[in-house]
């Protein structure tokens, strides 16, 4: 590994982290605005024009808030848990190519539109999120509170269950693209976005992705009427903000992967806009769907949520995988 590669990766990492944090800040505003409009009210509009400085105000408030901590906590794990959550969320973006097909030419270097283009591709995302579960679970365990522990149990059980459906719903894409590398997957969608042949898989992925990020209507871990705030009940100030950040960054990542894998990534139907803008536009549309669902649907019951994951989504994504495999092999004429 040369120094040049190390420096390039470091710079890209800083850009990605900065971008994701900005995205997180404005996603909270976006959510509040859209939800307000869906409910016939104006939403935040006092801080700056159209409330555009609201995230900064919220951030300052959380930053200067005193952090209260529960007395019987496990000191080390209590501090470690939010860090695991945030690091896992930030690290998953490393594989996502935001534009293409060729690398960016800058100062005589050719720079890829991703932090890394690993051979395992989406498996990196699945690996990192499966470690992210520890953040949530340890938060519940270390807080020494029954609400936190129950919330953590629920959310980690939910995340583990839906990870299966999430991973399997992506397999048809790998079969069609013949690669796990996200750059290859997007390039394979030059003429046809994969959402067209794989519409059921797209919906399976979307549902599993919403459940995986613990968002409404699957936000059981934070069911405030019964569990106060779930696994982060005992966290306040900046430590709470870290969990909040992880949740919103995970939403951005699920949307980005859906964009790259099903919606053609940087390819636009018309050659008007450059690649990164198409990517951003599609991610925003998917994030709108997230907010829209939250404003529309009531929360599900927990047993029905688990039944949906294991008895509907899991077999359906397995079936989708088999059908795709059979069709691809038949189309190649080797059956």
């Amino acid at each position, binding site marked *: 590994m040369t120094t040049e590669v190390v420096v390039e990766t470091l710079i890209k990492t800083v850009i990605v982290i900065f971008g994701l944090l900005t995205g997180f800040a404005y996603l909270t505003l976006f959510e509040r605005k859209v939800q307000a409009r869906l409910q016939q009210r104006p939403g935040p509009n006092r801080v700056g024009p159209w409330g555009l400085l609201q995230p900064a105000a919220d951030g300052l408030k959380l930053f200067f808030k005193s952090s209260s901590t529960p007395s*019987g906590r*496990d000191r080390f*794990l209590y501090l470690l848990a939010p860090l695991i959550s945030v690091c896992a969320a930030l690290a998953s973006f490393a594989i996502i190519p935001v534009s293409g097909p060729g690398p960016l030419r800058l100062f005589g270097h050719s720079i890829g539109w991703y932090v890394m283009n*690993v*051979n*395992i591709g989406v*498996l*990196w995302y*699945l*690996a*990192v999120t*499966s*470690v992210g*579960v*520890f953040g949530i*679970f*340890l938060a*519940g*365990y270390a807080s*020494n509170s029954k609400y936190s*522990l129950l919330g953590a*149990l629920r959310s*980690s059980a939910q995340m*583990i269950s839906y*990870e299966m459906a999430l991973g399997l719903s992506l397999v048809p894409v790998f079969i069609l693209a013949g*690669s*796990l590398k996200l750059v290859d997957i997007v390039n394979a969608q030059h003429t046809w976005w994969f959402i067209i042949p794989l519409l059921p898989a797209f919906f399976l992925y979307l549902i599993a992705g919403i459940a995986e990020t613990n968002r409404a209507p699957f936000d059981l871990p934070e069911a405030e009427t019964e569990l106060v705030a779930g696994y982060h009940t005992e966290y306040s100030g900046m430590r709470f903000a870290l969990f909040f950040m992880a949740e919103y960054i995970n939403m951005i990542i699920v949307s980005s992967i859906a964009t790259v894998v099903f919606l053609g990534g940087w390819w636009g139907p018309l050659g008007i806009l450059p690649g990164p803008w198409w990517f951003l536009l599609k991610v925003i549309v998917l994030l709108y769907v997230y907010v829209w669902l939250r404003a529309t649907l009531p929360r599900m019951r927990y047993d029905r949520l688990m039944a949906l994951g294991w008895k509907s989504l899991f077999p359906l994504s397995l079936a989708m995988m088999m059908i795709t495999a059979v069709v691809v092999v038949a189309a190649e004429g080797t059956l």
Partner: protein
Amino acid sequence: MVVGFAIVAAWELVTAAGVIAFRRPIYNALALVGNMLGLAVLFLMLNAQFLFAAQVIVYAGAVMVLFVFIIALMNPVSDVTLGPARGGEWIYGIVFGVIFAALLGVLLVNQGLTGRSGPSTPEVINAVGNVQSVGTALYTTFLFPVEVTSVLLLIAAVGAVYLAMRRIR
């Protein structure tokens, strides 16, 4: 590369010691998670990206989350503290330690420190693709062992479901 290996190896030894040295079960389990993640990093340094992902998803992600789950549910407030080790445990430790050291010694004498390189060199793997080469090996050369293992896992899953159903009735 050597420096990186030294760091990861040191991490592996420390976390492995942590698995048996911590007095609270949750820390033992977390040390094991750390150990598995370090192992995954070693796989990554050996160009085995797919093994890295499988190690993290299956062991660190799925199996260990289950361990931590059970530990947290069994004693959420007061952790059990283990009593002092009895004399008998040292004998097992010594016996297995000697066997392990002997195996390592035989390997070192026969193979040398770097081992022998097989047909799948890093260049070959990078040309074909990491996932592709693992997949080809699993579903052609080692098809029979893979199928036998999957049947074994299926039996375990069916058994677990049967036990759970019997409890409900």
